[in-house]
């Protein structure tokens, strides 16, 4: 995918994540410049997510799970969409949810193509972020 098109798609999608939006959703935005959206989900146990939107939306965003200091996630994960891994490609814990690149490239889900979801309402970068944040807050006490 041409980089300039991916950039336009990324910036168009991430535009919804304004300062007010972040405040209402209790998100701390560390960076939001193409191709990376770096956000901490505020919670009793905060989770930092780094979403890579290179080639978006030909490819879904890659999502890294991080500690709040930006280091790779080192604590326990609740299961469900939060998989302890290691992911066969990244070797790290990962988000096992349609819309995460790590899900669609995992051998268990190769048949569930990103094209099934690409372009749907709520399946942009911000929509995927909202889903992951919502599950984290639900499953982690």
């Amino acid at each position, binding site marked *: 995918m041409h980089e300039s098109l991916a950039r336009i798609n990324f910036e168009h999608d991430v535009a*919804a994540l*304004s300062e*007010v*939006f972040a405040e*209402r*959703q209790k998100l701390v935005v560390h960076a939001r410049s193409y191709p990376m959206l770096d956000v901490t989900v505020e919670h009793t146990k905060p989770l930092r997510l780094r979403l890579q939107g290179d080639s978006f939306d030909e490819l879904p965003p890659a999502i890294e799970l991080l500690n709040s200091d930006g280091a790779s996630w080192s604590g326990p994960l609740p*299961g*469900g*969409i939060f*998989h302890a891994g290691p992911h066969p490609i990244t070797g790290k814990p990962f988000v*096992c*949810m*349609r*819309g*995460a690149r790590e*899900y669609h490239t*995992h051998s*268990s*889900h190769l048949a569930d193509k990103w094209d099934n979801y690409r372009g*749907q*309402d*709520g*399946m*942009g970068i*911000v*929509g995927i972020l*909202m*889903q*992951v944040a*919502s*599950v984290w*807050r*639900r499953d982690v006490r």
Partner: protein
Amino acid sequence: MDQALDLRAEEADKRKAHDVAVVVITPKGIYPDEDDFRRVAETTVIAEVLKAAADKLKITNTSDWIAKVDGRRIDPSKTFKNEKLSCIAEIEYHKHEGGGGA
């Protein structure tokens, strides 16, 4: 005359006390907008407000979307009162997550 005005003012106050100030946060933005709330009667069905939000934000398919307030999932087919939502309701509205089990 003064008494009639007082009564009308009292009624308006009562109505206001049973209104809910609503904001809907979606992946496409915030409804009604970033700086405002929509005031609705507590007897309003939540789905009506979600539909208005989807229309304004040009979201066409919300068939598998969920609505939450303070992390609690709410039933859009109910009224704000049925869902015990009063005063201010910030509704998070987005697609349901799918996947897991690799």
